[in-house]
C-alpha cells in the first residue's frame, strides 16, 4: 500500500522479532497444557452452574472466599503494567522502554480474569444484565464495574497505540508468515506509515494518556478496596484499606513484571535487549514497595491493636494466633522478610534471586488478599459461631480448579501474544540506538 513506511532503526530488531516468526511444537504443547488446565476450570464451573454455589466451601458467615480473593488479586496484578509504563513515562525514566510492553501486557491479560472472577462468584450469572437495567450507583459494586471497565478499556487503547508502529513493522518485515497473520497485521496497523508527525503525535498522546492512566491506577484499586471498606465490618471498615490495597497491588504487579521479564529473557534469548540493569532498577523500586508495605501493615495493626475495640480484636487474633495464623505468618515471611533479605543482599546483578523474591511476593500477596477478606467474615458481630463448623472456610476442589484455570488463562493469553507480536517495543527502544 505505502511502500515508503518509515521504521526507526533498531539494532536488536532481529532478536526481538525472532519469537514472532513461527510457532514451534513446544509452544503448541504449552498451549495445550494451559488449555487443559482451563478445561478443568470450565468443568468445575459447569458443576457450579448446574448445582449452585453450594458446590463451593462458602457458607454463612463466610460468603466470600477464593473467588473474591482472585478478583482482588488479578486486578492488583493488572496494576503492574500501568504503573511501570505510565508512571515511569511521566517520571521520564528512560530505562523503562524495553519492559513497558511486557508490563502492560500483564495488565491487559489479567484484567479479564479479575472481571471473570466476579462473574464466577455470582449466584445468578444469568441476571448479570440487571446491573444495567436496575443498577444503583450508590453501591460500591457499580463503582467497581465503572472503574474496572474504564481501566480495561483505557489499558487496551494505551497498549494498542504504543503497539501501532511495531504492528506496521511486522506487516512490512514478516513476509513469510501465514497469510491470515499478514492480513491481521495489515488490518491492525491501521495504515500506519511512520511519518515524523505521526510519531510526534503518538508520543504526545501517550504522554497525556499516562497522566490519566496513573489516576486510573489509584482510582481502580481504591474502589476495589471500597467494596470492603464501605461495609461496617470489623477489619474492613477502615479508611486505610484503599491505600493499603493500592500499595499491595503495585507491589505484586511490579513483582510479576520481574517474573515475566526473566522468563522472556531466558526463553526468547533476549539477554541483550533486557539487560541485568533493568532488574537492578526494578530491585530498587521493589525495595521501596517492600518497606511501604511494612509501613501500611504497621499503620493498620498498630491502630487496631492499640485502640483494641473488642470486635476488631477478634479479627486480629484470628490472624495472629487463630485459624489463620499459619497463613498470616507465611505471608509476612514471603511478602516482607525473605524478599527484603533477597533484594538487599542477593538480588543485585542476580536475575535468578530476583525471580525467587518476585514469586514469593506474589504468593504472599495472594494470601494477603485472602487474609483481608476471610478472617473478618469468620468473626461476625452477631452470627453464632459456636456450632462446630461455623465461622470457618474450606475451599472445595471447584474453587481451587477455577483459581488454577484463571492463572492458566492469564499465562495462555500472554504466551500466545508473544508469538504474534513483538513483546519488546522496537520503536521505543530504537531511540537509544539513534544517539550513537
Amino acid at each position: 500500500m505505502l511502500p515508503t513506511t518509515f521504521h526507526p532503526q533498531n539494532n536488536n530488531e532481529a532478536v526481538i522479532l525472532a519469537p514472532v516468526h513461527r510457532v514451534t511444537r513446544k509452544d503448541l504443547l504449552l498451549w495445550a497444557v494451559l488449555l487443559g488446565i482451563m478445561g478443568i476450570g470450565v468443568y468445575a464451573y459447569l458443576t457450579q452452574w448446574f448445582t449452585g454455589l453450594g458446590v463451593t466451601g462458602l457458607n454463612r458467615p463466610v460468603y466470600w472466599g477464593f473467588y473474591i480473593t482472585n478478583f482482588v488479586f488479578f486486578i492488583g496484578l493488572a496494576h503492574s503494567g500501568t504503573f511501570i509504563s505510565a508512571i515511569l513515562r511521566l517520571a521520564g525514566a528512560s530505562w523503562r522502554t524495553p519492559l513497558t510492553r511486557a508490563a502492560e501486557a500483564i495488565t491487559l491479560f489479567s484484567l479479564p480474569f479479575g472481571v471473570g472472577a466476579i462473574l464466577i462468584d455470582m449466584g445468578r450469572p444469568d441476571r448479570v444484565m440487571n446491573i444495567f437495567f436496575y443498577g444503583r450507583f450508590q453501591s460500591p459494586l457499580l463503582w467497581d464495574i465503572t472503574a474496572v471497565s474504564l481501566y480495561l478499556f483505557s489499558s487496551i487503547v494505551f497498549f494498542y497505540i504504543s503497539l501501532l508502529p511495531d504492528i506496521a513493522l511486522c506487516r512490512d518485515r514478516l513476509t513469510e508468515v501465514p497469510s491470515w497473520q499478514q492480513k491481521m497485521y495489515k488490518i491492525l496497523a491501521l495504515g500506519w506509515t511512520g511519518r515524523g508527525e505521526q510519531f510526534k503525535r503518538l508520543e504526545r498522546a501517550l504522554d497525556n494518556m499516562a497522566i490519566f492512566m496513573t489516576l486510573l491506577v489509584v482510582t481502580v484499586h481504591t474502589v476495589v478496596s471500597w467494596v470492603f471498606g464501605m461495609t461496617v465490618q470489623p477489619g474492613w471498615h477502615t479508611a486505610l484499606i484503599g491505600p493499603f490495597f493500592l500499595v499491595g497491588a503495585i507491589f505484586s504487579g511490579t513483582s510479576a513484571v520481574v517474573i515475566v521479564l526473566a522468563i522472556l529473557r531466558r526463553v526468547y534469548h533476549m539477554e541483550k535487549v533486557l539487560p541485568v540493569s533493568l532488574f537492578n532498577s526494578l530491585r530498587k523500586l521493589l525495595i521501596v514497595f517492600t518497606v511501604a508495605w511494612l509501613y501500611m501493615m504497621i499503620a493498620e495493626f498498630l491502630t487496631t491493636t492499640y485502640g483494641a475495640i473488642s470486635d476488631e480484636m477478634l479479627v486480629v487474633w484470628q490472624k495472629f494466633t487463630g485459624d489463620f495464623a499459619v497463613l498470616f505468618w507465611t505471608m509476612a515471611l514471603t511478602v516482607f522478610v525473605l524478599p527484603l533479605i533477597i533484594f538487599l543482599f542477593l538480588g543485585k546483578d542476580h536475575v535468578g534471586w530476583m525471580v525467587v523474591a518476585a514469586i514469593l511476593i506474589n504468593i504472599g500477596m495472594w494470601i494477603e488478599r485472602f487474609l483481608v477478606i476471610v478472617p473478618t467474615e469468620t468473626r461476625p458481630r452477631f452470627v453464632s459461631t459456636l456450632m462446630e463448623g461455623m465461622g470457618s472456610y474450606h475451599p472445595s476442589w471447584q474453587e481451587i480448579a477455577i483459581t488454577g484455570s484463571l492463572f492458566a488463562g492469564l499465562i495462555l493469553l500472554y504466551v500466545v501474544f508473544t508469538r504474534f507480536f513483538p513483546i519488546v517495543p522496537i520503536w521505543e527502544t530504537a531511540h537509544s540506538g539513534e544517539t550513537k
Partner: protein
Amino acid sequence: MAKWSMVIDLEKCVACQGCSIACRFENNTPVVGPDQALMGRAMRWNDVFPLPINADEDTGEYPNVTSRYIPRPCMHCENPPCIKVCPVGATFIDNEGIVEQNYARCIGCRFCTVACPYGVRYFNWLEPKWEAPLGEHLNPDRVEGEGVLEGPVVRPRGIVEKCTFCVHRLIKARERAEAEGRDFRADEYVPACVQTCTGKARFFGDLDDPASTVSQLAKSTRAFRVLEEVGTHPKTIYLREG
C-alpha cells in the same frame, strides 16, 4: 404511615425456638439437612442462639457461668447497610420501614450478606428442597407485582432471602379491611413469630403511634437495640432481663 417494629422481652423468652419453627412454616424456608447445616448453611430467618456468640469469648468457669439466649429476626434497620450496597436495588425498605427482598431481581452477589452486621441474610446455596410431607404443606401465599416477587413464595437457587416481618400478612390484612369496607387497624397484622411466641415475649406494632404497645415498651429502661453503635437504628427492640 406506620413504622412497624418488634419488641422482644428477653425476660419472658424461654428460648423454645417456637418462633423459628413458625417462621419456617410461614415463609417456606428450605430445610437444608444436617451436612449443609454443619457447613453453616442452615436457613433460619428467625434464629435463636446463645450469647456470647463465639468460643473465644469468656463465659466463665462452672459454676459461675454467664450464658443467655437471644432470638434474632431481622432488625429492620432505619439505616440498613444491606440496602446501601445492593447493586440492583433487590433489597429495599418500604415506606412503612420494612426491609424486603425482591427475589425476581437479586443477582446473588452476596454483598448484602457480608454488609449486614447482624447476619440476618441467607443465601440459597443449592436448589431448595423439602422432605416428602413437608413439601406438600407449603404456604401458598406470595407477593407478586411488576418485577417484584417476595413473600413466602419458593425461592430459586442463587439468591438472597431474609425475614420480611411477614409482609404478605400485612398485605392480606389490608386487603381484608378494604374488602370489608373499613379502615385497617395496626393490631390486625402480626408476623408469625409474634403470633406463636410461647412466653408471649414478642410484641409487634406501629412505632409511630405513641399509644401502641411497642412505643410504650421502647421507652422502658430495659429497652436496648443490638449494635446500635454501628448506626443502623434497628426497629427490632429488645428488653433486657431483670
